[in-house]
Structure formats: C-alpha cells, structure tokens
C-alpha cells in the first residue's frame, strides 16, 4: 500500500461521544447528508430512527423523514427516492424486515444502492426482542451486500463505508449493516464521531449517472422480461457482486487513510490467532465474549484465537480458505439456525464448510448454535466449545454433530 501523505489523526478533529450503536449509525446518516429516510417502528432497530428524528428536530439534519404505514412501504419509498437520485436510509428488524421482503428483493434487482440497518432480532412466533441473525441472513441470495459490526464505532464507520461501496457504479447494489439487537443497538460505547469535511472527502455525492429517473434522462426502468432476458440480468447482478470485493478493499484502504481505523483486512478480523490451534469463528457482538474467553483461556495456556467475519456478502472465500486451514480445528458459532440444512448446522457453518472445500487442507469444522433470541453467550459456553473443538483438533477428524450450546435439556 502506498504511504499516505496525510497523517490522519493530526488532521482529524473527531469528537468523542458515549452513544449506542443506533445513535452511532444515526450520526453516519447525518454525516452522509441523507436525503430521504423512511421509518417504521420495530425494536431494536428503531432506536436509529428515533435518533434521526431528534437530529431533524434539532436542525442537525436536513432530510425527508417519512413514517410509513408498514415496512413494505418503508422500503418501497426509499427504493423510489433512490431512483430519482436521493441518498436514502432505511432499516428494520426481525419480522419487520420480512414484511418488507418483496421490496428488499426488488431493490437488489433494480441495482439501487439503498443502505439499510438491520437491528438483528429473532423472528416471530413467538415474539422476542433479542438477537438472532436469521432476519438479515434470509436475504443472502438476493444481491444485497451484508455486513456485520461489533461496536458502535464500527457501526458508524461501516455505514459510511456501505454508502461508498453501494453507490460505486461498478457495484450499485444495496447494503445492509447488521447490528445485534440489544448488545449493540441499545448499549452505549465511546465513539469517535468524525467531522463533516472528512466524511465529504471519503464519500462523494451520490450520482446515478444515466440511470437517473428524471425527465432530463428519459428511461424506462424494470420492464417485464421473460426467459429470453432474465438470465442476462441475473448475470449482471452476479458480476456486480463479484466486483464489490475489490471496491470494498479500496474503500477500506481509503477509510483507513482518512480516519485511521478499520483493521488489517476489510473482510475478516483475527484476534490472537498467530499461534492458535483452535479458533472461534463468528460475527457481530459475539466478538466481545469471544475475546474475553480467548484471553482467559490464553492465561490457562490454551492456544485459542478468534476470527470475526465482517462481510457476509460478498463472502470472503479467499480469506476463509487461506486463514482457517492454519488451525487444527475451527468452532463456527452461529447465532442463527437453518433447520434441516446439511448436518442441521447454522448458516455460517454451512457457508464455511463450502468455502473450505477447495482449500488445500481442511481442518475439522465444528458447528455450534448459540445465543438465540438474545441469550447471552457466556465465557463458560465458549470454554465448553473450545474443549470439544480441541478434541477434534487433536484427532484431526471431522465431527459433523452440530451442538446447541446454552440450551436447557
């Protein structure tokens, strides 16, 4: 990487604030100068819409703020606002996200760079407010970029990055930033809030070019197609998602250059993995108990590490295939379920196994379903997981039993 001429921290005058993940994302919306925001209440994501509303009321943000009559309309409203050239923000949680499913699907089909927040929440029935990742994961095949964050700081930073990547015309795909319900949406962190001019440098104005719906650019968008055309259109989406990888990498470097944050790799974060025999693998706020557990077990002399996935779509197959074979065994921790899937594993588990199939060596991959419905994943849970995983690492044999941890028998 070229050495930057700008010394980031000298130039940046960031303000530190104690705010929730929702409030951090609201700051990103303000800094991105969003034009249209559509809201509808559902816990836990709606904290972000409350924070945005407050900013508008206080004159800190100039945006059309539309409270829709349901999530389907909420997502349709921003989709259409995006088509006429507005930078938009939207979001939901759990079944609310599902209520918008049709609109979510077409937004990706239309290649509109809508940025959404998903405050991950368990799906009804029964109603539960706590985190599960099944809501956001359900759209994994549709052409949305999906990213998970771990801290409020990362929520702010990644949201800015989401606009940058989504609006890049080589990509032009919607992006959902997932934040775990309660653990991130409603807990307060110390966050460095960057100044507007720095954000402006990072994030250019949204420009749809010749895809803008406007009388000066008369076009017809999304006419009906048949079997003669759809495959070509799907292929265009496939190509755009493939290009997203390079665009994310570039955006990551640029972000680091301006703000000095983001870590070594845009797609995965490794923690104490250098000499690790076993690693935990997961995404979102699982990182917090995982890091604590890793440190505790390290004190006991166990060579454990943690690998955190930051982007689920596009899936970083290259990183997974090069990083995970370094270890003797991997414990994939899913905060989701996929009933009836291969070995009855979670979504991450299945994807990791798939990505590793073509790696030169495959360590045993063990699947664990944990922390559903907002249940805490404790360091004890993780110690239990590490014990089972170490055994597989020693034997070197694949253990296909997917274990539910922290569930009462």
């Amino acid at each position: 990487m070229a050495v930057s001429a700008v010394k980031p921290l000298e130039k940046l005058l960031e303000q530190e604030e104690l705010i929730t993940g929702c409030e951090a994302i609201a700051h990103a919306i303000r800094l991105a100068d969003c034009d249209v925001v559509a809201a509808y209440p559902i816990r836990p994501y709606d904290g972000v819409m409350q924070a945005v509303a407050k900013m508008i009321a206080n004159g800190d943000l100039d945006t059309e703020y539309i409270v829709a009559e349901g999530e389907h309309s909420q997502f349709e409203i921003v989709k259409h606002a995006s088509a006429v050239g507005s930078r938009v923000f939207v979001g939901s949680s759990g079944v609310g996200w599902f209520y918008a499913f049709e609109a979510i699907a077409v937004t990706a089909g239309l290649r509109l760079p809508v940025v959404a927040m998903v405050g991950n929440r368990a799906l009804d029935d029964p109603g539960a407010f706590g985190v599960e990742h099944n809501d956001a994961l359900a759209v994994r095949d549709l052409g949305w970029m999906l990213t998970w964050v771990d801290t409020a700081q990362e929520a702010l930073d990644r949201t800015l990055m989401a606009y940058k990547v989504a609006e890049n015309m080589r990509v032009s795909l919607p992006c959902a930033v997932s934040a775990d319900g309660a653990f991130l949406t409603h807990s307060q962190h110390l966050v460095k809030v960057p100044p507007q001019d720095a954000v402006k440098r990072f994030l250019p104005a949204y420009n749809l070019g010749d895809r803008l719906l406007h009388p000066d650019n008369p076009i017809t968008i999304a006419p009906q197609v048949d079997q003669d055309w759809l495959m070509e259109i799907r292929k265009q989406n496939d190509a755009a998602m493939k290009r997203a990888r390079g665009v994310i990498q570039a955006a990551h470097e640029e972000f680091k250059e301006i703000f000095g944050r983001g870590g070594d790799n845009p797609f995965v974060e490794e923690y104490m993995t250098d000499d690790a025999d076993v690693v935990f693998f997961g995404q979102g706020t699982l990182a917090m108990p995982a890091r604590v557990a890793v440190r505790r077990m390290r004190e006991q002399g166990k060579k454990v590490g943690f690998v955190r996935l930051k982007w689920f779509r596009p899936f970083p197959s290259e990183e997974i295939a090069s990083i995970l074979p370094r270890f003797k065994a991997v414990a994939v921790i899913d905060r989701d379920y996929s009933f009836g899937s291969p070995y009855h594993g979670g979504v991450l588990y299945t994807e990791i196994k798939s990505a590793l199939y073509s790696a030169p060596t495959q360590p045993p991959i063990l699947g664990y379903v944990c922390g559903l419905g907002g249940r805490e994943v404790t360091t004890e849970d993780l110690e239990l997981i590490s014990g089972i995983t170490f055994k597989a690492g020693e034997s070197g044999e694949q253990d296909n039993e997917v274990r539910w941890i922290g569930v009462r028998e």
Partner: protein
Amino acid sequence: MAETAVAAKSSSVEVVYRGIFQKTLANRICRGLVVAARKDGRVGTAFARYGDSPERNGVPAKNFAVVASDGDELEKSLAKYEPAIVDVSICVDDVMCKGIESWAWYGIQPINKLVREGGFLLVTSDRSPEELLQFTHQKSYDWTLAVIPSPKREGVFAPDGTASLAGLWVYNDDNTDYRCMAAVTRVAPEIVSIDAVEEYVREQTKDEDRVKQARDAYDNLRILAVKGGQGNAHFYEQYEKPGWTQMREGIIVEAMKVGTRNPVYKKWTARTRRPLIDFDKCIKCTLCWLHCPDECFEVTPDGTYEVVYEACIGCSICEEVCPVENCIKMVNELEFDHNDSLYEMSKADPDGYRKLLEKHGFPVAEGVK
C-alpha cells in the same frame, strides 16, 4: 435450410390462434388430438406456450399437441420448452397467414415457420389454398398447404373475418375443433386415425350430426402441394438479442422519442380486420384519434385522420365512435397485402381509392369530388 424430419415415433402439432378469442378452441383441438390418439394406443401431451400467457385479445398465441408411440419418445418432447419443428401446423384464423407476432416475441414470424420438410399447414378459411399461399411465406423445401372449409359462423366477434372467435367465458361451439382434428387425420394418420376422431366426437357430443361435420372436413380438405420457393418472398426483419455485457445495467431501456413508434413490436399481426377510411366523409372531429387505445391515428395535411396500419390492432373502436355513417368501415385484413398509407394512395389515385372503398361496401359516391 432444410430441417431434419422428426423421428417417426413421435409427432407434433401446433395450433396458432388468436389470444383469448380462440383460447378455448386451441385447447380443445390439442387436448382432443391427444385424447383421441389414446384410442389408437398412443400417448401424448398437450400444452399452451407458456410465454404467450397471459394472453391478449387477438394477439397470436400457440398451443401444442405431441403424440408418441411410447412414454420414452414422449419424454423427449416434454424435455423441450416447445417443439422446434412440427409435423402439422393448424392456423385457425386465415389472416395469420400473413405472419404472426406473439406479444412475447421480437419480430414477425411466418405462420409456417415450424412446419417441417414434407409437413403440413392446415388453415380454416373460406379462401382457396392458392389465394392463401400469396400471403404465406415460402420455404426452402416442399410442404403442403391445406384449407379446412370454415363451418357456418355465428356471433358478433369480427363478423367480417372467417375465423371462429369467442370471448373468454362462452365458447363458440361450432365444430371447428372437431373439423381441425379430422383434417389432421387426413394428412397425418400416424398421429391419430379418422376412426378415433369420429369415436371421440361421438363420445363428447352424442350427436351424429357433429360426427358428420368432422367427417365433412376430412372429405373436403383442399390440399395444395407447395414446392420450395413458392409463396410470399417478403420476410420481416429479425431481432438480435444482446448479451449481458451489452445490456444496460439496472434493467433500463431507453425511453421512446416523441413522434416515434415501437420499432420492434408492430402489433398489426394481432388484427383480423382493418379500418378503412373514406377521407371525403371525414369531418375532422378527432374522435377516432382520441379514442384509439393504440395511438394509431395521425392527422393528414388535410386535417383528416389516417391509420398507421403497422400499429393498428384492429379493435374497431374507431368505426364505433365515428359519428359519420360509412366513414370508417372494418374490412378483412386479407384484402390487403401491405401496411402502406392509404391516405397517400387516396391522394395519388383518387379514382382507384374510390373503387377500393366501393369494393368494400362503402356507398357509391354521390357527387363527391
């Protein structure tokens, strides 16, 4: 280019029909052929071309019947979206001999496009096969054109046409289906025998008169052997579909420009009749123009209105809303072999145009210059 003949063990029939108006008819013919062929010990399948659905009133559509000697043979046909070639093509509105364009297609196709070498095109018509061959496109190989004389017509749909037409909810039960089936047995008995069809009609209707009607079509089929190179030599432009790297991203197509018309989809093959205008009678009231759902009318330098025939679907609303008697009349489309401006003809050759109008039932001019 000669297409290879299908294997003798399985045969395909297509019915080309007017969307909605003949939906039930086409379905009855194809189903009937398969069910009747069971009596001869054959197996089969019947299906509508999925791409034609949802059908549009008048817009050409297709229905297929495949009959085979055994299940394995049949499966070969089922594995395809639609047959690439057919043994027998049945056209149930003779106007479609000019060419057909499904709403899902690009470019006008000859009615006999799928007819294999040595295959048959059967047309229900009051006209002779020689007359229909003038409109029907030539092929590089020999084939056969046969006319199924139309049964007695009833009903209000397109009364100047010869096709058996109906709406969606009430079928025009005039034996056209049985007559088409019987005609197939005459040219391709390997698909189904006349005995099987007669038995089928008897079972369905318990009416010997209808059995006779079917037999009548079998006996009176007017067959014309056509040599390669005979027939209409004018082919329509074909449309090349771009690939994904050439298509605009974001499912975008360029808007139309003011004053232009869709260059790819012309719509005229959907009409059985066309409006003919007596420009001398036109009072320039604009109503035909105003009420045309297909934007077909254009103002002439005289201030009268003329039809752009490439765009006209033949709905007849203009005739209906015109306040002047005998100013606009609907005329069978086969009376014309072009879509050229008739206003220009009326200017270039006023007497000739007058004669044309009179030929089509417009009253003889009374002192009109």
